[in-house]
């Protein structure tokens, strides 16, 4: 077997395609070399054609426009450029993401996933969208028609608005406000309204039950989210998302490592906020069919389904920004465009979400509520206290940052492990619950009824 055919077999490609691939790789390498030269040369820095940070291009555009027209025009044009960027990205995500999610789930489930429409089934989401658009829209009789019409649009608002303060690169933030964290919290709690509206207006028992669960659950998990972000703010001393990323970039430390309790709390609680497994009880299909959007059909249902994906991606971006260093990558962001770094981190978080969805069963409502109120909130409050002390020490110490930071990182990781291992409550209230004990069935060849059963039970 020649080396070439072995490679071809590995990649499952014919010789012709292999050659094309090799050529493409060579071309990419050459392009990379050119880019590398330009980057080292420093010729790109701050110029409008610096592709690593599109913020420069927008700033240049703004300056050019300000020179020839009233400032309102440049304001609107740059705003529209930013909005276009965000919505374009979101649209791309919605179109590609559902394909990615279905393919990934299919891989987890030893299936193939969509592979018929277009190359590798890539056009499947488009076909789905077209199909949904031309489906008849049914409005249940007895529904509150106005409130029924609003939610499909209203659920999009938080998912789009939350993209605003996410920094894509040092100068590439659409909405670089100094209260970014508060803004994110405020915006994300809007979704409850839309979902409850949808469930209530449908006048359907399943939808109402889903809406009620949504209210109880999303609202409860909002508090751990706020508390987790509070410790981020304590450490970085700013509410501005771009500053939080800068802090992580300067300290060469991801907040997820420094604040593991906050990180895990935020991640878990956010899965409840966006109705993902294992916390997807608001639309638990085995119990309440589709929850709050049971009654929606056609494109309206499509919007609900799409926004689940949009929420997952926005969560990925927020987790990446707050806890995984955002656009920074330990200096490599001078080479790789920072927005690609952020997209990759977002994708990684999204992958974890899909992985969870493909693996875990779901909790019960009372278990989830108990977990939030009796475990996450106390732990988060305690964590805020610990972090406040640490932040005070950090700011007062004159020692170089690396020593206390690594000490606190190790301490906090140890605390997180302790919380997870020893303080976690028993999730089930059942009499037979007990962690760790063996529960394999007893094997027996004895036969009998109640008496035999009692004998078996009394035997060790």
């Amino acid at each position, binding site marked *: 077997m020649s080396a070439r055919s072995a490679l071809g077999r590995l990649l499952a490609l014919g010789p012709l395609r292999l050659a094309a691939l090799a050529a493409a790789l060579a071309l990419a390498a050459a392009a990379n070399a050119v880019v590398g030269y330009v980057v080292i040369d420093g010729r790109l820095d701050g110029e409008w054609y610096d592709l690593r940070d599109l913020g420069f291009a927008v700033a240049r555009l703004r300056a050019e426009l300000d020179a020839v027209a009233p400032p309102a025009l440049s304001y609107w044009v740059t705003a529209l450029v930013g909005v276009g960027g965000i919505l374009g990205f979101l649209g791309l995500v919605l179109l590609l993401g559902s394909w990615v999610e279905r393919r990934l789930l299919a891989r987890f489930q030893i299936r193939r996933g969509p592979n018929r429409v277009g190359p590798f089934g890539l056009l499947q989401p488009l076909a789905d969208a077209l199909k949904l658009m031309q489906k008849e829209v049914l409005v249940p009789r007895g529904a509150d028609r106005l409130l029924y019409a609003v939610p499909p649009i209203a659920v999009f608002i938080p998912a789009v608005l939350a993209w605003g303060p996410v920094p894509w690169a040092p100068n590439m933030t659409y909405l670089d406000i100094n209260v970014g964290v508060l803004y994110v919290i405020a915006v994300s709690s809007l979704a409850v309204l839309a979902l409850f509206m949808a469930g209530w207006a449908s006048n359907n028992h399943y939808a109402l039950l889903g809406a009620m669960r949504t209210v109880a659950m999303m609202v409860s998990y909002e508090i751990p989210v706020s508390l987790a972000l509070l410790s981020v703010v304590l450490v970085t001393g700013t509410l501005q998302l771009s500053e939080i990323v800068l802090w992580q970039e300067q300290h060469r430390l991801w907040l997820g490592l420094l604040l593991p309790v906050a990180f895990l709390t935020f991640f878990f609680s956010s899965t409840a906020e966006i109705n993902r497994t294992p916390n997807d009880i608001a639309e638990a299909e085995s119990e309440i069919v589709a929850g709050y959007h049971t009654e929606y059909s056609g494109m309206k249902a499509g919007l609900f389904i799409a926004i689940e994906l949009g929420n997952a991606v926005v969560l990925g971006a927020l987790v990446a920004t707050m806890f995984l260093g955002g656009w920074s990558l330990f200096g490599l962001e001078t080479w790789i465009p920072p927005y690609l770094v952020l997209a990759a981190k977002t994708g990684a978080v999204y992958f974890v979400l899909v992985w969870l969805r493909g693996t875990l069963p779901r909790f019960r409502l009372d278990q989830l509520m108990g977990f939030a109120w009796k475990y996450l909130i106390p732990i988060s409050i305690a964590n805020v206290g610990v972090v406040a002390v640490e932040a005070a020490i950090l700011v007062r110490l004159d020692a170089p940052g690396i020593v206390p930071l690594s000490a606190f990182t190790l301490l906090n990781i140890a605390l997180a492990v302790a919380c997870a291992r020893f303080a976690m409550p028993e999730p089930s209230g059942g009499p037979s619950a007990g962690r760790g004990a063996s529960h394999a069935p007893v094997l027996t060849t004895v*036969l*009998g*009824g*109640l*008496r*035999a059963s009692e004998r078996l039970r009394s035997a060790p």
Partner: protein
Amino acid sequence: MPAGPRQLAGERVAAALEAALPGSVVEVHPEWVVLAPGRLVEALRWLRDSEEFDAAQLSSLCAVDYHSYFEVVYHLQSLDLNQQIVVKARTTSREDVSVPSACEVYRGALLQEREAYDLMGVGFEGHPDLRRLFLWEGYPGHPLRKDFLQLEGHHPGLPRFPFEEPGVQSR
């Protein structure tokens, strides 16, 4: 003789029952015992609780239409002693179709009695929730009765069996 491998002889069951509850046995057959409807529940409870029979489980309950009367067949199972007992109860006629319910002795009879009531029209006195199980309230007749196909609007299915001479299947 067609009998289950671990089925108790009817005579043995009948003798024990007569000794404990005189007058409860109506008819004895090598394989089964026919109980008096009036003492059915009592007899079943005795069979369930007795050390000798330990008929802890009602494994199957089913009704049979014998044209002039209905018969309810109880297959009782002792799990500890691994033996099976078959007892039966008969209605007095085709019109008076009531048999006492075994529900208070065996909860497993809940759905089986509803099924027999629905399909065979046997009334189980004392059943906590005697409604039709498969068919809806108001359905005409009881399909498993032998005269069901003579009801108005119903037609018998196959006229005859394959592999059979005509006329043989008439009962």
